[in-house]
């Protein structure tokens, strides 16, 4: 019951921007300026005291970034957003806004490797610990919640298992304990999934991926749904108690539904400083303009390729929720009716060596460490991102020696299938 007044595709082109009043520029101008002149000394004081709107310094806000922020916030149905330097920075900003040393996170076990590193190795050094649980088990999330838990976290679709998170069920157990849910929606974008609509409170994106589509920038977005009651929860002194770092400002009291995103900007961007460059914001906006068209094509191609791979003799298994063999097939149909994303993984016969030969046999798929480009991408974790791990350690990480991850792009599916056939042939050949 909170649908915006225009349809998604229209908002993806227009939300947050009006033609420039002075020049008539229709496209969003790039405001490549570090700072902005104050109208007067009184207006300057007003800006610093949050009693006027406007821009001061591009670490805190920038007019180009503001268009991107408002656009993603509207698409995700939130009260506001902050654009940051990377997806990792978005994750860090959320954690730093919600908690400090001595606090705790409950997270799905099936996460992007970089997020896993941050949660399991780096944040503990700052006194923040994470308990990892099975993404398919809401009861496990509930059981892992402690008195000091400040966040429940997961990805819409995990990786490499492509587990679909039951966001409504997980939000229910988190909210019962007075804890907010943040969802990493990088793989799905608001075109496929709007976590806030499903019951989540916060959303983060690596905008580097499908939101951009062109693979030319690194960026992150953090969206506040404006639905969580920080004061009622009683667990959030950063949001519901006076903040000495801002003249005793109580964010929940003064900003109401926008408390989280206000603090993320006023403290997190101000003090940690991981802001987005305005030119990056411009590039991401160019991507979002065609998000619907691209995602629809990504899904068409991905579903064809998942089906193709599942029928090949040299392929032991394919993991994508669009396949009836996937454990989350039914859940994906319910929560992700437009598709479960264009990333998939499969297990090639012949293990590590076959995986290497497969990759080397491809001509169209690019072998690199990224997902969500308009071009199709491939990676073999056992010989790249996880090359230090032996077979046993790989199994513990949910990865096998013959596992290949694909990010399906926008090329003609027939050409992609031809390419995959060539890869499978070279994998099989070397095996004999």
């Amino acid at each position, binding site marked *: 019951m*909170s649908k915006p007044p225009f349809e998604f595709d229209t908002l993806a082109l227009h939300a*947050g*921007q*009006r033609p420039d009043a002075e020049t008539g520029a229709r496209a969003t101008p790039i405001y490549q300026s570090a700072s902005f002149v104050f109208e007067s000394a009184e207006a300057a004081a007003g800006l610093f005291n949050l009693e006027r709107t406007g821009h001061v310094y591009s670490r805190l806000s920038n007019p180009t970034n503001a268009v991107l*922020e*408002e656009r993603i916030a509207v698409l995700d149905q939130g009260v506001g957003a902050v654009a940051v330097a990377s997806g990792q920075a978005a994750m860090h900003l959320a954690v730093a806004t919600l908690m400090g040393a001595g606090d705790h996170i409950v997270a799905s076990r099936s996460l992007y490797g970089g997020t896993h590193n941050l949660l399991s190795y780096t944040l503990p050094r700052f006194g923040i610990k994470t308990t990892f649980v099975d993404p398919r088990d809401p009861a496990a999330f509930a059981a892992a919640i402690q008195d000091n838990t400040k966040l429940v976290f997961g990805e819409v679709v995990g990786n490499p298992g492509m587990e679909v998170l039951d966001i409504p069920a997980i939000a229910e157990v988190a909210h019962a304990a007075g804890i907010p849910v943040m969802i990493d929606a990088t793989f799905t974008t608001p075109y496929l999934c709007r976590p806030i609509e499903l019951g989540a409170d916060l959303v983060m994106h690596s905008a580097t991926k499908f939101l951009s589509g062109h693979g030319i920038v690194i960026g992150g977005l953090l969206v506040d749904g404006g639905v969580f009651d920080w004061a009622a929860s009683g667990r959030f002194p950063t949001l519901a108690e006076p903040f000495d770092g801002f003249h*005793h400002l109580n964010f929940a009291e*003064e900003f*109401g*539904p926008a408390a989280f995103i206000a603090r993320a900007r006023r403290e997190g961007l101000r003090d940690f400083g991981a802001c987005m460059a305005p030119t990056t914001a411009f590039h991401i906006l160019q991507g979002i303009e065609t998000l619907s068209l691209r995602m629809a094509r990504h899904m068409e191609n991905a579903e064809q390729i998942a089906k193709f791979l599942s029928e090949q003799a040299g392929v032991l298994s394919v993991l994508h929720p669009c396949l009836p063999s996937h454990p989350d097939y039914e859940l994906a149909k319910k929560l992700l009716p437009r598709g479960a994303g264009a990333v998939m993984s499969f297990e090639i016969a012949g293990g590590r060596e076959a995986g290497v030969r497969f990759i080397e046999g491809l001509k169209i798929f690019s072998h690199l460490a990224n997902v969500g480009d308009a071009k199709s991408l491939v990676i073999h974790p056992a010989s790249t991102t996880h090359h230090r791990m032996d077979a046993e350690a790989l199994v513990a990480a949910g990865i096998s020696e013959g596992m290949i991850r694909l990010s399906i792009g926008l090329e003609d599916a027939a050409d992609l299938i031809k390419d995959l056939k060539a890869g499978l042939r070279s994998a099989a050949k070397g095996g004999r």
Partner: protein
Amino acid sequence: MKTQLGGATAFYGVGNGEHAPEQPSVVFIHGSGMDHTVWLMPARHFARHGYNVVALDLPGHGGSEGPALTTIDAMSDWVSALLEQLGIGEAAIVGHSMGSLVALDFAARYPSHTRSLALLGTSTPMPVSDVLLDAAKNDDRAAMVMANTWSHSAPGLMGGHKSPGMTLYFGGLRLLQRTPEGVYFADLAACNAFEAGPVRAEAVACPTLVVLGNEDKMTGPKQSRAVASSIQGARVVELDCGHAMLSEQSNAVLAALKSIV
């Protein structure tokens, strides 16, 4: 800040200032289904400039306990009781939408407590359409979506918030959605039933400012002008925005308020 009034907790924001009743006071009264957070920016401005700010939450809204009051008269009596409790003799009274009716009623009935008056997005009578009133009665969440849509100007609906990174549409909606069930209908019904407006307007004797949005679909520019012309000496400021002027034109609203508070 919190105080006890008639056995219930009453909340009021102070714009990050101190409660200082010896300073000149300014009282902000929010509209239907809203709370003190709509006054974030003006409250902070006047607090910084040495005013005693009372951005109150009417009963049942924000941090004030319910039940919601059901008539505009009852609301202005409640405001009077709150000011008395806080030791405030005289104040500039600022109201938006339903709050403008409360402010108008208060200024007429408690003239010695009213230094000046600012009515934002006002109309009297303030008839609420049957569609909206029925929706609010049957399913107030649906009514909130309707009213929030009508509260923004055409450009405002597409966005372009002046506060970086915020959304106009969802910012308004999420605030309404915090209101406990039943409160929004009580508010709209109170606006709809308030018939004393023209009589109260004639009785206002203090300096008065009416701020109107030229794209206001809830309380149209014509109706706002009519209110102004029925108040002795009232000035009008017209802004380029819809009913949700506090978020669509925050800086211009502040500039207007500075001239009357």
